[in-house]
């Protein structure tokens, strides 16, 4: 598996759990965390296997709430 080149940071409390980032992540590493409810009452998006992130920023591109910051190494 390719070496991880990216990292994403979600500002969890701003997330509305819309799932758009989930649907566009090429590496399918984003999911909605059904076990948490954030301040706004939504299940926020989380990344489990951060090492798979390629830093493509697709997620950020689609996030309507500017929740995501993307870094690349």
């Amino acid at each position, binding site marked *: 598996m390719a070496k991880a080149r990216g990292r994403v940071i979600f500002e969890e409390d701003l997330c*509305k759990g819309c*799932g*758009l980032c989930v649907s566009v992540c090429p590496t399918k590493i984003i999911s909605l965390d059904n076990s948490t409810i954030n301040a706004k009452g939504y299940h926020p998006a989380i990344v489990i296997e951060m090492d798979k992130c390629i830093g493509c*920023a697709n997620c950020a591109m689609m*996030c*309507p*709430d500017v929740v*995501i*910051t993307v870094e690349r190494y």
Partner: protein
Amino acid sequence: MTVVFEKTKGLTDVQTHYCPGCTHGIVHRLVGEALEELGVLDKAIGVAPVGCAVLAYNYFNCDMHEAAHGRAPAVATGIKRVRPENFVFTYQGDGDLASIGTAEIVHVAHRGEKISTIFINNAIYGMTGGQMAPTTLIGQKATTAPLGRDEAHSGKPIKMSELLATIDGAKFVERVTVTTPGHVRKAKKAIKECFKLQIEGKGFGIVEVLSTCPTNWGLTPEESLRWLEENMIPYYPLGSFKRPKEDD
């Protein structure tokens, strides 16, 4: 390590009131980024419409002026004629721009006002709860078209970009969407070009963005993107309808 994406200074830190997955938010971000990247944030004056974007004045990180329903182009005209050195844009929905505000958008184009308009076409009245817009598709349901829009009763949806492109003073007319990261990038490019037109003093520019309304379409955010692609794009073709000519 490099930050390849972070929140633009073109937006404030206020969280939007938009429904989850509503693409209004994406377009806000693109506008904020364009303002920042073109260096006009400090001299920008935005005009917020009446529609779901009515609170846009809280989100764009520049001076903002709220307008009456449909009248944003007139308000923008008033501002721009007083302050030609400022950057003036409107952000309007399809009910606002294509219905009640038809005269205002046509005449801002007709006079060639040097302002830029972001036109959010979501084929519905979002804010008031899903009534039919002039852009609602044939067969699409709305609270005021409970059986779906019927051509015999309401005509075919109006294509504002095509209509505005016939007007000489409209120098930049392009239709984009934000259903995929690729489309988002193209949309941003169009918005930046449109804004540049104003900076260069060339005339009126408008970017129509096909946008979703998951809430009133009764679909999930993701379903909404697909519905848009499958239904709206075939009727509202994406692309450039007008660019400034050499001599403009």
